[in-house]
């Protein structure tokens, strides 16, 4: 009886969302969705057509995926490292540090649309090649957005310690470095992942949006826009699907990394 209960809950867990998804795709393929959205199969092509186009243009799509993912990953890495460093500095100088973090976290609330053109201005002299200039500007946008998420979360991880653990370290007469590596850093690991859960999807969005304003035309986000301008909706949809896949794959990788690393941490202690 218990066994059947478990099976049943598993069936609803997977079955309900699958059924919903199947219904959605079916209504799309049969044109019902077009009626609901009051649009036509020209602007919203059938799923099979989108897949065909993705197959036909796979080389070109991969080129743009490369550009976007590169921007997202480099920006994410730079931003996260910078954000963590800021958090460490804020931990060492708590009074002024936390005030600085308030400012950094305010960056989160600034529209990326406003940031992107400013950074494009700033990076005009970085290189003579338009592709490299644009790349630098886009990376800067992603860096700033992921830095904000990382610094705020990492600061919490470095300062919100288990009760009395700081006192325990003091009784061992541990130095600041020992305290950092034995207590603060391990404590902050889950918080790093909290930050990444926000900044990984954020980095993809940052990369796509900053492409809109970039000088050099490349990237999944820019292709969506360019193809719509020339009314190639099916191609635009192919890029939208690609963008969704990028977002989902990057998040899935993050989840995998999180489960492996957190498990390793648990085994170590």
């Amino acid at each position, binding site marked *: 009886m218990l066994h059947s209960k478990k099976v049943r809950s598993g069936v609803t867990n997977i079955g309900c969302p699958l059924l919903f998804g199947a219904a959605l795709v079916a209504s799309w393929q049969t044109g019902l969705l077009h009626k609901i959205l009051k649009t036509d199969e020209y602007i919203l092509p059938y799923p099979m057509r989108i897949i065909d186009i993705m197959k036909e243009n796979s080389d070109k799509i991969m080129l743009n995926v490369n550009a976007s993912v590169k921007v997202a990953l480099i920006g994410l890495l730079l931003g996260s490292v910078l954000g963590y460093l800021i958090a460490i500095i804020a931990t060492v100088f708590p009074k002024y540090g936390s005030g600085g973090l308030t400012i950094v976290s305010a960056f989160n*609330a600034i529209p990326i649309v*406003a940031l992107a053109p400013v950074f494009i201005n700033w990076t005009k002299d970085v290189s003579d090649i338009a592709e490299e200039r644009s790349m630098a500007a886009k990376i800067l946008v992603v860096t700033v957005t992921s830095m904000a998420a990382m610094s705020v979360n990492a600061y919490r991880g470095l300062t919100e310690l288990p009760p009395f653990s700081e006192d325990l370290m003091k009784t061992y007469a541990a130095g600041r470095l020992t305290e950092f590596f034995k207590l603060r850093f391990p404590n902050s690991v889950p918080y790093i992942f909290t930050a990444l859960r926000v900044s990984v999807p954020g980095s993809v969005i940052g990369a796509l949006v900053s492409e809109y304003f970039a000088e050099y035309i490349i990237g999944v986000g820019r292709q969506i826009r360019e193809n719509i301008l020339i009314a190639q909706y099916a191609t635009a949809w192919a890029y*939208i699907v690609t963008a969704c896949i990028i977002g989902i794959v990057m998040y899935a990788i993050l989840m995998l990394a999180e489960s492996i690393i957190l498990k390793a941490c648990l085994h170590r202690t």
Partner: protein
Amino acid sequence: MKKLKKLLTSKFFITIVWVVMLIAVWELFAFHVENIKRTPENVQPHLSGIVDSLTSDRKINGSQTALQMVIENAKATLTRAGIGYIIGIASGFLLALFMSLSKIVEKTSFPYLMLIQLIPILGMAPIINAITGDIAKSRIIIAAILTFYPVATNTLAGFKSVQREKHELMYSYAANKFQIYTKTMIPACIPYFFTGLKISAPMAITASILVDTLQGGIGLGCLLSQSLKGAMTRYVFWDIVFFSAVIGILSFYIMGIIEIMMCPYRRTGKR
């Protein structure tokens, strides 16, 4: 002396110091740009120049000063962001409510709720614009979708945070479902709900500005791209950058203030 020391370490003072430092860095960079560039306002103008452009009464497009233009366009952008925000809040809250009421709804929609967060909605702005065929509508829709996710997930987390004892208490009173929700569940999730509101307010504004840039017409984003293309003085661009930054940050804090007003119990300190 003691008072001075207290002032120097107060939170307010520290924030001021940081803001002053940011301004100093900005100005230093601006001086540097001024020396090496012919048109420094294209890269980084002095803050004074930006303030001047806002306060001057020179007509930029023949009938309006820079400030008037920014305000007029901001009205259009913010109204649509606001409408989308409210629609997003309402639908996000309702979905969370239905998810907490029904296991089937929860199980069906939870994976898709996660997906919405991973899909770059902002990247889809052009296609949504194409489907609706109306820039005003697409602004509202995108702002609503972006608001929807944080509000729905945070509200749901709020419903789930209610202690088991509170459920048992209501059970022992033989309270009906309506009473359980109005007396316990909904008041308990309000702080979580506001977390969602605070996260999504700047996002709704970002969405609205971004959609503006896709098409002409009225709106901060349109003005921004016109200024970037050289249709008017570059200072209008800087005005908008600062204006939207301030509005984005303000929207976050305004939600915080509304929360404090609505929840007096969180205001009173521990005895």
